[in-house]
């Protein structure tokens, strides 16, 4: 299958970006260097093209009911201009995807949402929404608008000022997870104070055919998916396909450590299974760790206890550009999850000493 391309593929290529396949998309992984891009976001500002993220639009009399029953959090609490992080779980309470749900201004008097599933999952997610709407006989329109939008993230301590300067409206009054329509160079953008780096900043969902105008209106370090990954690992944020995968690494939201996105007082697919998990307790959970010995932890490496018995698996790892230390995330039995616990990570057959750390690894907003 040919790769999908973001609207600005050509612009990024001219700028000298290297590309990688991610979730079926051909995305810029690096513009200058991951180190440079990473530090720009931690110390100044950077802009990411995240047009591989999906956009699904839901409206109608039963829009809230449909969203409520397919996501783990309490959507009914989200006001217009608000947003919410949630998981999408199956009947067994296993995470299929995670998403941010934005509540748009009402359309025709009905609650209206735009939610952002991960790269390459938009078609299956759209189908899931349509199938359940039909099954439950709900009145809602579900549109997959992934192709209509580009999406940019502008992140870093100086990002809010940059975005505010580019917008006709004042966007600095928006709190974390708040959003509004704002105009950049005459183009209406859904402008949200959200992100995936641990820094302050905004994400902008923009019409695909106006993407270049928006991209050029915000002048800061362009950043690829490489820096996006190192930044999110330092912030302790999970990534679909790494920390959970319905097929190869099935996990419930409690193991993943996103309890805050689960509201068991709402009715949703997987709710009963998760209520049982909560009552029974967890066997494994995601922890952060730092490697004490030299080496770099990578996805799939074994984690052992100090006797050398395999007890877990690394889900993500990198050399942290901010800390200049090797860090990672991984699943271990709960008895090894206490910060300070000594473990080992097996790097090419050799055991490297590691210590469980609290996440985030760096100060975040």
């Amino acid at each position, binding site marked *: 299958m040919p790769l999908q391309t973001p609207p600005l593929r050509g612009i990024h290529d001219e700028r000298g970006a290297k590309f990688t396949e991610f979730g079926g998309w051909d995305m810029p992984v*690096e513009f200058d260097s*991951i*180190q440079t891009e990473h530090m720009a976001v931690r110390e100044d500002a950077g802009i990411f093209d995240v047009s591989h993220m999906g956009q699904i639009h839901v409206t109608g009399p039963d829009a809230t009911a449909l969203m409520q029953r397919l996501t783990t959090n309490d959507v009914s609490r989200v006001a217009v201009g608000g947003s919410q992080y949630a998981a999408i779980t199956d009947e067994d309470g296993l995470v299929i995807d995670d998403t941010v749900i934005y509540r748009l201004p009402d359309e025709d008097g009905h609650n209206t949402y735009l939610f952002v599933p991960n790269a390459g999952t938009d078609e299956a997610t759209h189908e899931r929404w349509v199938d359940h709407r039909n099954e439950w006989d709900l009145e809602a329109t579900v549109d997959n608008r992934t192709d209509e939008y580009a999406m940019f993230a502008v992140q870093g301590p100086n990002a809010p000022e940059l975005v505010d300067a580019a917008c006709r409206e004042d966007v600095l009054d928006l709190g974390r997870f708040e959003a509004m329509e704002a105009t950049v160079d005459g183009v209406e953008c859904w402008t949200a104070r959200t992100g995936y780096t641990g820094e302050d900043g905004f994400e902008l969902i923009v019409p695909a055919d106006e993407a270049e105008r928006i991209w050029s209106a915000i002048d800061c370090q362009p950043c690829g998916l*490489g820096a996006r990954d190192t930044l999110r690992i330092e912030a302790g944020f999970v990534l679909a396909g790494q920390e959970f995968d319905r097929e190869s690494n099935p996990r419930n939201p409690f193991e993943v450590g996103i309890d805050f996105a689960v509201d068991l007082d709402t009715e949703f697919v997987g709710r009963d299974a998760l209520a049982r998990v909560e009552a029974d307790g967890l066997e494994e959970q995601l922890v952060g760790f730092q490697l004490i010995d030299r*080496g770099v932890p990578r996805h799939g490496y074994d984690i052992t206890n100090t006797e050398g018995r395999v007890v877990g698996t690394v889900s993500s790892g990198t*050399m942290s*550009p901010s800390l200049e230390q090797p860090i990672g995330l991984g699943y271990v039995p709960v008895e090894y999850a206490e910060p300070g616990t000594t473990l080992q990570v097996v790097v090419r057959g050799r055991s490297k000493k590691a210590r469980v750390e609290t996440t985030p690894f760096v100060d975040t907003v």
Partner: protein
Amino acid sequence: MTFDIPEDRQYMESHEWALETEDGVRVGISDFAQDELGDVVFVELPDEGDSIAQDDEFGVIESIKAVSDLYAPVSGEIVGVNEDLFDSPELVNDEPFEDGWMIEIDPEDESQLEDLLSPEEYEEQIA
């Protein structure tokens, strides 16, 4: 994008270079290779005195985004290891042909160098 390809040494298809010096055959990776890898954060090298066979892995280089094996251009004994790379792996990015070198091999058979690519052949390979 153009890459440095010094004329004074030979190259492997796997992007290592080999330079004859008075201490033996010095080995590193090319400018093209360091650019492909991106920020180098870790280098694992053999110990002095170890033996290595031509085309066998002698070490591992890791950038933030990738892990890559390193291959020996000739067989022989390891007589030098660039320990500066343990604390400053970024030397591989900054000076791949100079201070970013990795090992020196006392070659068993210098004619093995003839198996390698000339600068012109290597240039064609990465074009």
